[in-house]
């Protein structure tokens, strides 16, 4: 089936020309645009109050040939549609992005750069992006990268789009490297306190073990194993613990685990895996084998950023930001200036999602 789909762009679902025109007009008037897809991640990042520019209508899988391990799809394609097509061919997105609602789009997945529990073991969104077609702040269509894994021609501006929250360009189409679904998966839970679990994992990961998830909910260490039958069986026996349903990992992936529930502000600390958790709040749970800590805190954001920075990482007010406050770890002045120059390089009129990432961008 796949080859028939390959490189035959469908006319329906292609609104690139209209999007380009909107940007051109906005740039001429220096009027801000607020890029949206499925609108499932409006809570994430700072708010921006431009004219909405929806890419949801720019949709459809453009090319998918399982033997190439690549899918090319328009940014407005629902994540669910992409994942259904991949699953039918025994393939998956290695970075396991959170599914925050049925409307969630592939473009939003890339722009937010959020990766799921497989991240430390299989790579992040940016690791899997092979190419992107974007509209820059002039409304010009630019294509970077391509559909092949090894490609070092030109700067990797397609990877730069991952996590940039639309500030550098409107993603029109992306090509994503895929992974075969593992032959065998198992989930288990161990009664190991948090600090012991962090040590245990650091030791365990010095060996070639088929880990694909390591999450601690404050009480138990949950592990997921993915790989060949022999390797998964052997390490499961060695680790012991209670076997659990693999569906547990869907909740971790989609940020539905009860430890993260509640309406209060939720902080995400990204830390070196072996670093102690900085005492800047109450750690609710950790993922990524200890490298991602979910936290509640009454401290001022500056104190949390300082604590995370001192531990070698950074902190994000993931959910529950108010007003125009910053949510991402502030950048040093020279670094912020570089970010501003990069923004100006692709969007000189400053019309694409201004302020979505940082107030000064």
């Amino acid at each position, binding site marked *: 089936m796949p080859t028939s789909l390959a490189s035959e762009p469908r006319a329906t679902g292609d609104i690139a020309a209209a999007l380009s025109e909107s940007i051109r007009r906005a740039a001429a008037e220096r009027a801000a645009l607020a890029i949206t897809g499925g609108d499932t991640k409006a809570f994430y990042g700072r708010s921006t109050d431009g004219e909405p520019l929806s890419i949801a209508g720019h949709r459809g899988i453009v090319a998918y*040939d*399982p*033997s*190439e*391990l*690549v899918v090319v799809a328009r940014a407005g394609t629902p994540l669910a549609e992409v994942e259904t097509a991949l699953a039918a061919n025994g*393939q998956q997105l290695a970075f396991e992005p959170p599914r925050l609602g049925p409307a969630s789009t592939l473009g939003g997945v890339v722009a937010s*750069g959020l990766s799921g529990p497989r991240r430390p073991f299989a*790579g*992040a969104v940016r*690791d899997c992006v092979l190419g992107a077609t974007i509209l820059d702040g002039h409304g*010009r*269509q*630019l*294509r970077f990268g*391509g*559909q*092949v*894994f*090894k490609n*070092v*021609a*030109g*700067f*990797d501006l397609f*990877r*730069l789009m*991952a*996590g*940039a929250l639309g500030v550098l360009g409107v993603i029109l189409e992306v090509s994503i490297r895929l*992974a075969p*679904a593992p032959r065998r998966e198992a989930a288990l839970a161990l009664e190991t306190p948090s600090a012991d679990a962090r040590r245990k994992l*650091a030791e365990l*990961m*010095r*060996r*070639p073990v088929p880990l694909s998830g390591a999450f601690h909910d404050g009480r138990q260490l949950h592990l997921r194993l993915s790989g*060949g*039958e*022999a*390797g998964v069986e*052997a390490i499961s026996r060695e680790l012991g613990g209670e076997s659990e349903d693999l569906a547990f990992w869907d909740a971790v992936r989609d940020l539905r685990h009860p430890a993260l529930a509640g309406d209060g502000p939720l902080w995400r600390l*990204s*830390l*070196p*895996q*072996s*670093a102690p958790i900085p005492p800047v709040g109450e750690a609710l749970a950790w993922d990524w084998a200890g490298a*991602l800590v979910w936290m509640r805190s009454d401290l001022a954001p500056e104190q949390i950023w300082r604590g995370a920075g001192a531990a070698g990482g*950074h902190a*994000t007010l993931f959910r529950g930001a108010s007003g125009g406050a910053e949510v*991402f*770890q502030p*950048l040093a002045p020279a670094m912020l200036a*570089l*970010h501003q120059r*990069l923004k100006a*390089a*692709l969007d000189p009129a400053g019309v694409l999602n201004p302020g979505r990432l*940082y107030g000064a961008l």
Partner: protein
Amino acid sequence: MLDRFESRLDGEFAEVDRARLLERLAAALPPHRLIATPESMRPYETDGLAAYRSLPAAVALPADADEAGAVLRACRELGVPVVARGAGTGLSGGALPFPGCVLLALGKLNRILEIDPLARTARVQPGVRNLAISEAAKPYGLFYAPDPSSQLACSIGGNVAENAGGVHCLKYGLTVHNIVKLEALTIEGERLTIGSDALDAPGFDLLALLTGSEGLLAVVTEITVRLLPIPADVKTLLVAFPDARCAAQAVADIIAAGVIPAGLEMMDALALRAAERFAHAGYPEDADAILICECDGHAGDAGAELERLADICRAAGASLIRLAKDEAERTRMWAGRKGAFPAMGRLAPDYYCIDGTIPRRRLPDVLEGIAELSRVHGLAVANVFHAGDGNLHPLILYDAQAPGQLERAETLGGAILELCVEVGGTITGEHGVGREKINQMCVQFSEAELTAFAAIKAAFDPAGLLNPGKAIPTLARCAEFGAMHVHHGETRFADLPRF
């Protein structure tokens, strides 16, 4: 010739009095680490692309980031271009100096600063050899995965600049997937920390942007690489095919079946015969193509994976399937592949190594296309591929002493790269654009895209002093070069004045 810097096509720089430049550099470096006589600069006149040679105004050999920063500041103030160089093994002329520039050779920054077995990282200086990292990590049961064939000699700083790949990147990724943090200097000599010891960093993903930027954006002075646990078991299979098309089909079938081997290499008849005579690897000389497949992991899984692989190859028409029975045989199988380049020395006095990537499914067509181009240009081409990821290394055989052959080899190489772009691939999979493929960039990218690249460069290096004339062509160059080309049926750069 591309080894000449042409101001009109590559960028204008003010004339700088050489004595004044040397005086400023002498203030930044002790005398024995500033080289300025033509004889002593000779070893630096070329990198791994030896056809291109040129001498810089001076070679600076800083011993640490402070000295490198001082050199950059001096060059920035005087408006002198800077070309950074690691071990000089690059194959695209990325470290080729130009007259008047300062060659910043980072080989003295060659210390492994720290190996952290719990964090599974190594913090190293840019001049450290790729293989030295794996050697130092071995006592901890860890290794650094990207393994370009020059890994014995090439430096990690150069690997970052080129986003180097290797034989095992199908499974373990490229340099960009295996580094976590960089310390870098801007052209102003200011220090930047890029990435972090965590799994991500706030702001734009500058780690991804800098990796593979070929020395155009910043100079890297320290790298933290990710180390992986050494696999429990490794198994290697040699498969021969009576028809190269069957081999290409087998590669596509393997990937579609959900098997990601650690390595999946292909050699065509000409390449495998030369390699066999050179390395006695045990390749069947009557085969039209061979595959070398390697699986690693838990002993049981690697074995099972290899069996699945063998079944697929058998179904695709393999005439011979041989499992390496011990480490010695495994090493021999690889020796042929790794010796494929030197083996070409038996077929012709010179060879020119091309580096394109194509979608795997186009492999049979591209093989035919290359054979046709080879006939048209009258030069033999041997093909060695990282087949698993569609990365081709056609080796064009020629004789530099024979009049016109080098030019013909270059023309043929350019035509092969354009064929790669035509089928949806790229002009460089792992060697970089450097100086060599600067003109082909005009084929792969539009004027607007090249303008965006230039704007990104200017955000880091407004005066354009870092490695000018490499990696990203000026529009003037494309206007001149592109005039000969028709892209997607349109004349390119139609709105630019012609020279």
